[in-house]
Every structure is written in structure tokens, then in C-alpha cells.
């Protein structure tokens, strides 16, 4: 991920705006898989208990 004044920041969220939900499974996109893996990794790091949001941040 690189920051540049011209281009902006490539984020870690895949741009799925125009993609039908039933097409996601056949995209075979590593971007999508990587983003999901990153998200799940963050959940593990935060150690959020099942019954609670990470509130009072």
C-alpha cells in the first residue's frame, strides 16, 4: 500500500460496488480473499468477546 499525493491511498477494502453478490464466489480474486483474511486477523488481535463490541474506544 502506498501513499501518494497524486493517487491517494490504496485501501484494504475491495471495491465491490458494482459486483453482484452471487458473482463474488466465482471472481477468484486474491484481493477479496486477502481483505477477508486481514479483517479476520484484526478481529483476533482485538480479542473481542462474543457478547460485546469493543466499546468505549
Amino acid at each position, binding site marked *: *500500500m502506498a*501513499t*501518494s*499525493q*497524486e*493517487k*491517494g*491511498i*490504496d*485501501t*484494504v*477494502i*475491495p*471495491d*465491490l*460496488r458494482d*459486483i*453482484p*453478490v*452471487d458473482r*463474488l*464466489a466465482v*471472481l477468484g*480474486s486474491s*484481493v*477479496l480473499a486477502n*481483505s*477477508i483474511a486481514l*479483517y*479476520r486477523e484484526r*478481529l*483476533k*488481535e482485538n480479542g*473481542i468477546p*462474543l*457478547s*460485546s*463490541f*469493543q*466499546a*468505549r*474506544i
Partner: protein
Amino acid sequence: MVATHVLPAAAFAALAGQADDPNAIRIVHEAQLSKHLMLIHAIAEAANGHDRGPVAFRAARELFARLQAADPEAAAWLLGLPQLGGWAHDCLIHFEQGSAADFGHFACAVAAAAVRAGFRFELDVPMRDGRVRLPGLGYLTASGSSPWIRLHCDGDRVTGGDHFEADWRQLVPDDGSGGAVPLWSGTPMLRAVTDGFACSALLETDDPYLDRYSLPMSKDLSPEEIQRWRDRFQRAWEVLVRHHRWAAEPIAAGISVVVPLTPHSDTDLVSATTPAAFGAIATSWPPDPVTLAETLVHEYQHVKLCGLMDMVPLVESGGARVYAPWRQDPRPAGGLLQGIYAHLGIVRFWAAQRHAETDPDEILRAHAHFARWRPAIHLAVQTLLDTGCLTPDGMQFAELLRNQGRELASGSVPAEADSIAREVALDHWLTWQLRHVATDPATVAELADAYRNGGPRPGRLRSTTIIGEDVRKVGSAIRSRLLSMRYLAPARFRELRADDIIPLSEPDRLLLADRTDTAIEAYRDLIACSPDPEPDAWIGLGLALHRLAASRCQPAFTTSLALMFDVHTLMRQHIDPLDLADWFA
């Protein structure tokens, strides 16, 4: 090939700079829609087998795909629901923990979107507690013992099982205008209009996936309680529109759900935001409209930053926990960043609010809030940078926040408000030091020996900034509350002081009565003569000393209170704390 959302540099800077930039907010919001679609996909990969939950999920996903094709706005509405985020978050946590996720709830969510759009569908949805929940709309009360019910919409009428039928146009949130539909309970809607500007949000009192805050959701509010919330929301909106327009319009666009919380005590004010439910904020009952307005500003800052941090990692995991001027506990870098961002909004709010108030007590409160948080931004940003936990984007963001803090730093504050704010901030810092700064026993022993022997304080010491959770018990909460009450509730403070019924130690009583010199002597005597450590008295002594002109002793309290306290405790002699502080200095 799927690309990622791109955040333009100008939008990144606008989010840091609190600029009212609808484009930046729109980009964050669109990324949340993608995030929710991504999470649905992640959940779909686990929704296998023939149990009713996964079967219902797959059917709902097919319906959602049809809805996406036929009515993109309806699909986007669903993807923007905080309730959907809360549920998806819950599913992923279940996956991590290897427990059963509630796949079937997705059918409720998709059915809600289809009902709202008048879309033809037929779908089995789960029923819980006698309710079929349609997130974002409300719930229908169902009968029968089956845990599932078939919902059907023919484009005009919605039926549920064999007992419920209504026009889909009537299955809407309850804005208080009447039009009751049998068996249908619309989610209460808060709607405010001021000077032509409107704001609405759902008062969510039922969705189990938003009942996940550290305090429980206030459920089943009475009509009178709901009306109180509507009235307060309207009044708070008036405050925002008339004095904080920079915040009002983004809040109207960005907050779609308010979750009322039940606090442990009626006097507690607790508010919260979670990255799991973008667009939702939670708060206990706000005591006045200005407080609710400030809460909306505060929590919306968290909403924005949660959205940004979903897109752009700003903080690395791990790292030490550090001091945050607004929290009693040590915070990780991510939490500190959230606090800084929220308090930038708070400072900006009070900077304007102090000029909007007319009542002397309210003026004092506004000025003191401003003076309390204004200097905290710079200190907290430096602490954050020192953690070494920021990514390059995070460092850039923090610098932008620091610049923003500088821009808000101008403006004079009346002496009384400034003095109260400084003392409350000092009390927080001194208390935090004693609670959370652990010391090295060898260093403490070395210092105690040197002091006993009449030598100078050793110049080089081992590291003494080991931060732990509650390493000492400090019990000065009543004094701290009273110090804050001087600006948070001045009238109440005057009453309590006049009645003289507060259970305070004699030195604390003298401090609160502004008899500073006498209080200092009383704290010195208490610390020197008590057979037990007196952490509360050390904090009180530090506070009292800082009311006087600058002296050599003062820095010892602000920089080394925990160490000084532990050295004094180790010596267990009749040692004047001011002599020790002077030696430390």
C-alpha cells in the same frame, strides 16, 4: 479482477482536518457497503449444509442478488445498515471461536430490504421471542410454536405465516405519527427539524446484534420514554444546527441509529461506538440537550474514524499501553488515536458552545470543557507518536491531527474556568500515575538509601515508566468527582459544599473549601504520620501545591509521583513529603 477502494489524499486530509467534506464521507460510506458485501461473502463460504440456518442464508442471498439487480438502492440500503454490520461481526466472531453463527438472521435482513422496496419474494425467516425482526424497519409479532415463518410479498401485500397481512408500505419505522398496523411494531424513529435542516435516526431498542455494548440496550421503552428521546433529540439538533453547522450536516448523513443504553447508575453518562456497526452510536440518557449534542459530535468522530481505519491501517498491533487524558485505564495506540480524534471534535464543539451559552453556570461549563481538552490534544498526539505503533499513514494522520489541535488552541478562557480545567486535568494525571505506573523495586531501594544517607538523588536511574493495570489502589474518586462537579454541575457543587455532608477526609475538605495552605499542612501531616501509605493524600498534596506559585516541588509530582510515593512507603518513617519532593526535584 477486483480493485480496492482508493482514498484520495485530499479526502484523507479532510477526514483528519475535520473539514466538512461530503466527498470524503461519501467515500468512507461506500467502502462500508463494500465491507458488508465482503463479510456476507465470507459468511457465505461457511454457510454450508442442510440445517435451516444455512439454507435460509443461501435463499436470502439469492433474493439479495435479485434485489441488487432490480433495485440497487434497496440493496445499498441493506448494506448500509449498522444492524447488518453488527450481525456480520457476530458471525465472524463465532467462526473464530468455532461456535454456531446465526446464519438465518440474514434472511430477516434481506426480507427487510425486500419489504421496504415492495419487492416480490417468498422467504423463510427465523422467529425469536415471538418476533420476526426486520432490521431497520421493526418487527412483527408472530404466534405459533414454529421457530420459522414464511414471509411473502406479492408486490402489494406482505403476509407472514397464516396470521399476518399488511400493505408493505405500512411496514415502516414508527415516527410517532400514528397509523398503527396490527401485530406490527415499527422501530422508533427520532426525527428532528430545525431551520429547514432535518435529521433522523432509528432509536434501536430491539435488535439483538446491536445489543453488544458494554452496557445493556434499554429495551421495550414506554411511549413516554420514546417521546422523551424524541424531544431531547429535537433540542440537541437545534443546538447543532444553530451553533455547530459544521457538525450537523455530516451527523445527519452519518448517524442512522441511536442505541439507548442502561447505565449502572442514573448519574452515569456513557456513550459508545463500535467499528462493527458503522452508523450506529450508543448512549445512556443524556441529561440535557447540549450534552446530547456533544455526544453526537463525539461519537460521530468515532464513526468516521472507524470507517477510515477499516480502509487504511493507521496503527500496528501490539505496543505498550499509554496515558490517555480522558480515560482511567492505560490505552493501546489505536484507542488513543480514537480518543484524540473524538476530542478534536469535542474541543471544536465547546469552542463554539462557550459563545452560545447565556447562563453563567453553562458558560463556565463550556469554557472549562474547552480548556480541559484543548491542551490534551497536543500531549496525546505526542504520546501516540512516541508509541512507535503508527503506520506511515498513521503518522501522517497524527501530524494532521496535531495541526488541527494547534488551530483550535487560540482563544482566551476566563481565569476561573481555566483554573478548574487545569486542576481537573492534573488530578487525572496524578491519579493515573499512582494507579498505573509501576516502579522498579531496586530503583526504589537505591533512592531510599540515598535519601536516608543524606546524599543527593542518584542521577541515573533504571527505567521507571512501567505501565500496568491498577498497580496501586487509589480511592480518591469522590474528591475527583467534586473537583469536576465545579464545572459540570456548579449549582449542585455549591449545594453540596454548603451542606458539608460529603464523606471527605479533612485535608480534602480544606482543599475543596479553597483553604489551600491549611490543606497542604493537613496532607503533609497525614502522609508523614500515617502508618499506612496514603496515595490519595499524595494526589491531594500535588493538587494543592499546584495552586501556589511555581516551586521546586511541583515537577516531582507531575513527573515522578509513583516513584516518590514508593520511596516514601519503603522508608516508613516520619518523613515530610515536601522534603522528599524537594530532594526529588
